[in-house]
Every structure is written in C-alpha cells, then in structure tokens.
C-alpha cells in the first residue's frame, strides 16, 4: 500500500478493514494478554491483501503433518476430559472425537475432527474424514450438552466428509444437513474454530456456531484446491492457482463475513510450538465463549440463525 495515492478505493477499503478489526473483541483480548507485538503483526498481515504465495502457505501449513490436532489442544486447554464414544446406532467414528471436559472452570462439550499422526493412526482415523456415524455421534453429544446447559466447542479439521460407498449408503448428505440444523437449534452457547483444513460440507456440518473462529494458518473452503483445479483447470496440478482464486485463507474468510475472528498462531505456525498455539487458542475460545454467554438463550439462537441467513453476496 503506497502512501502517495490519496483517497483511492483501495485505501478506503483498507481503512474500512482496519476499522472492522478494531471492533473485533478477539483481537482486543489478545492484545490485553500482553501479546502486543503479535497483535501488531497480525494487523499488519490482515491489512494487506494476502498474495497467492501467502494463501498457498496457509494451505501447506493447514495440512502440515506436525500441526496440532483436536486431541493435542484438548490435552492442553482442558483441565479434565472424558471422551464419549459411539453414535448409539451403529458405530464409533474415530475421525471425529466427542466428549465433555472442564474448560475455564466450567463443563463444556467438545466435538472435533481428529486426523492421525502416524500411518497406523491415520488409517484408524480415516485421515479425519467422517462417516455419517461421526456426525450422528456429534449430534448426540450436542443434544446432551443442550440438556445439561453445557456450552459446545467444536474444532474443525477435515479434508472433507468421507467419499465412500458405505458413507453414501448411510446417508452422508442427509446427516451433514441435520447436524447443521441441530446446531442452529441449540439453546447453549456455541463456538467453533477451524484449526487446520475446513473442508467443505464435512467441515460446516460442525461449524454452525454463535462464533466461528479460524486459526491464522487454517483454511476453510468449498472444495480442495486440487479438486477445484481438476474441475475448472482440468489439471489437479494447478492447485496453487485454484487456491489463489477461491481464497480459502483466514483473512479472506474474515473479509467475506464468514468467520468472526482470527486466532493467532506462533510465528512460524502452530506446529512449531504446540503449547503456545494451544494457549492462544484457549484464550480466544474463552473470550468468544464469554461473549456469547452473556446473551439470553432465545436471543442467542435468533442471532445465530440471522447471522447465517445473511451470508452471501448477490446483486438486486
């Protein structure tokens, strides 16, 4: 951004963007905690339109093999956690973990995708790709949370819902739809954070929350860059171009009004320092939760619905 061009449309846009940033409670919260330089770094980053290379860096970091997964965060953020298993119907989907735990001194329910660290665990976790059974398990635990007035935290990290024959037979599309519907109806406060890959329907199925956050280097997208490239460029090798075009990075998602805040990561990415990443995530989740807890349940539910009802940009 050059200083010499005065009052250009671009400058106006930048000013608007910064004004919006100052209103973000999350970023303020991070500042209060003494992370001022990090806050400045983040504002600098967000103030600039991410380049194609930066978007691609986020894609790579979001998929980094050492990136912390849901259970890595649970271990560090929660004081106690009991995992709950099974959909009470057919199976226990290891690609998605659920449970109840202590977070900031209160009981909360946790739902999160789980990828595997080594090849054995990856296969067991199905690379974080959920079957309908996983969404049913998530729904069961969210209903439990609603009954007992436990806030719900969801952590999103999936390449997408599993694209297999049995998943289809068990109604993959329908369960993704019903999980979203249930999340809209919950009376309890809900906060989601995209902590890695927010892949398509499989991600949004558990991300219809009062506050949706994204880690700095996470991605949230309608299709994988490779999938998009294969269809529109007819060449999966053009993934980088595709990513630059559909902009799955946190900054763009914030700009488009899809997420409510960006959660900072340690300087070189969450994988470089899991403890620091967990601290930053825990802090942001706490601030967001406190913020939505203030509303009465009816108003909260209505505002959640209205937020998603408004999403989209069209001409009339």
């Amino acid at each position: 951004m050059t200083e010499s061009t005065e009052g250009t449309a671009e400058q106006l846009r930048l000013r608007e963007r910064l004004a919006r940033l100052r209103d973000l409670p999350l970023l303020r919260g991070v500042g209060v905690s003494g992370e001022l330089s990090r806050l400045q770094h983040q504002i600098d980053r967000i103030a600039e339109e991410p380049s194609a290379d930066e978007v691609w860096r986020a894609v790579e970091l979001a998929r980094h093999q050492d990136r912390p997964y849901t259970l890595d965060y649970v271990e560090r953020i929660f004081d106690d956690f009991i995992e709950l298993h099974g959909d009470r119907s057919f199976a226990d989907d290891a690609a998605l973990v659920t449970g109840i735990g202590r977070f900031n001194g209160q009981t909360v329910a946790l739902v999160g995708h789980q990828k595997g660290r080594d090849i054995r665990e990856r296969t067991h976790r199905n690379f974080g790709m959920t079957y309908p059974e996983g969404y049913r398990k998530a729904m069961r635990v969210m209903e439990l949370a609603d009954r007992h007035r436990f806030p719900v935290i969801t952590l999103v990290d999936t390449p997408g819902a599993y694209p297999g024959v049995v998943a289809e037979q068990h109604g993959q599309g329908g369960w993704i739809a019903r999980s979203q519907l249930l999340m809209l109806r919950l009376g309890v406060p809900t906060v989601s954070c995209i902590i890695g890959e927010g892949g398509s329907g499989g991600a949004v199925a558990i991300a219809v929350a009062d506050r949706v956050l994204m880690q700095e280097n996470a991605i949230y997208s309608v299709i994988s860059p490779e999938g998009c490239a294969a269809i529109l460029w007819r060449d999966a090798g053009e993934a980088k171009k595709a990513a630059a075009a559909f902009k799955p990075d946190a900054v763009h998602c914030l700009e488009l009004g899809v997420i409510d805040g960006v959660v900072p990561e340690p300087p070189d990415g969450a994988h470089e320092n899991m403890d620091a990443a967990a601290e930053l995530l825990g802090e942001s989740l706490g601030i967001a939760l406190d913020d939505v807890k203030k509303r009465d349940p009816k108003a909260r539910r209505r505002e959640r619905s209205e937020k998603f009802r408004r999403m989209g940009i069209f001409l009339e």
Partner: protein
Amino acid sequence: MASRIDVSIEHRGPEPEPPGKHPNTCPSCHSHYRDEELDESLWVCPQCGHHFSVRARRRVDQLADRGTFEEQDKDLRSADPLAFFDLRAYSERIAEAEMATGLGDALIAGAASIERRPCELAVMDFAFMGGSMGSAVGEKFARACERAAEKGVPLVCVTASGGARMQEGILSLMQLPKTVAAVDLLHQKPAAFISVMTHPTTAGVLASFASLGDVIVAEPGALLAFTGPRVVQQTTREKLPEDFGLAESNARFGHVDAIVPRPELRPYLGRVLALFE
C-alpha cells in the same frame, strides 16, 4: 493421501453433447423425439421410461395449475465477490448461462398452486451452471421459505444441482447453513416442506435443504449422492454397486419417502399438500 482427495462438492455443467447426438435422443434406448412429443410425455421416454432433464420453466408448467405461478425475485443475480477467474472469468460464465437459459440464476421461485392447493414453488435448473448453488440461489431459496412461512403455505422445492458453486468460494459453502436456517423457519412455523429430488441432486444441495423435507420424493433413476460415483471411484478405488447413489438405492437405504414417476408427480404432490392443509 489427503492432498489427493477431491473434496465432496463437485459440480460440472451438463456434459457437452457428442457431435451428431441430438439432446432429444434417449440416452437409454436411443429413440429420437421431437420437442412436442417429449412435452406431451412430460419429457419421459415413451419407449423405455427414461426421465430426461426438465428445464425449470417447463417443470413449473408441468406442476403448477395453469397461470398460477407468480415468480418472485426475478432480478436477483449472482455477484462475483472474489473476482473469480479460472480459464475464464466467472462473470463471463454467468452472463453466458443467462443468455443460454433465459434465467437469472439456477433457481426460480414464486407463489403457485398445485392441484388447487396454494404453495410456494421453487425449481432448480441444471442447465444454468450445473444447477450450482451460489449466493443468488441460496438467497432465492431462503426468501421462498420466508414467504411460505409468512403465508402459512407449504413449500415445494424441485432440486437439480451438482452442488455448491465453487466460483463463489467459501460463500457458496455458507449457502448450506443459510438454506438450512431457512428450512428451520418452516419447521418452526410449522409449514410443510416437500423436497422433490431430480437428477442430479448432489453435494452441497443434498447436504443442506434438499435432505430436510418433511416429505422427500425422488424421480426414478435420479443420482442423489453427496459424492458422485466418479469421485468415489477415483478416491477409494472401491467397486461401486451398479445402482450407486441412484434414487432406487436411496429408497432401499431409507433416505427418500417415495420414488414417483414424473407422470404421477403432480397428483402425488396434490395429495401430500391436501394432507398437510
């Protein structure tokens, strides 16, 4: 492995016709028809029963009582919020689809009556960019729900879609929770929601409002799948059952209430609407 995954929401426009093959040739038995003949048979092959794709306006004519359809939000159009450019500009693709189909986007909606029962009717058109759902489709669907809830009439929605419109990036994915929130409004009222799934109803549309009907009806032979057979095959290398993802398979696994052949659809909807009155 994960990086190879062509994630779930796929959509393509209609396959280009091979040269010399007329769109009115039945892909199943190769009989050939004139437009008037197919109009007469509701675009169902008189020889073998194959259900041809039906354009949105033709579908309205087939279902709504003559002269009752009052289209709303005609001027609502897709924007190009990402200035998306692949091999061509998204804005160009929209303009071309509008020229080719005569529609503002991939869904038309308005008040209608079916067998003298008042309702809101929303119909998708696969010929408009593969029936893909971007912000315009999501908004038009949501408004149809709001009108139905306000008037206390049922909503009948006929889907034909490859899924979310990836040229709108994450905003197209957000049309899933947006349309689900709109259906929630119907459920709260309650106003009946009848979902009619036609070929193809896949990915983002199947994973949102289409699957939330109080009653879900499918046309014979329609592909109703979250992930289409091509991607499932490529990703998993599984051997696919012959009827993978088809309406018949969905009925067997309990995902739809009925498979209704097109000639019976209108009277069937009439009976359903009467029961919800």
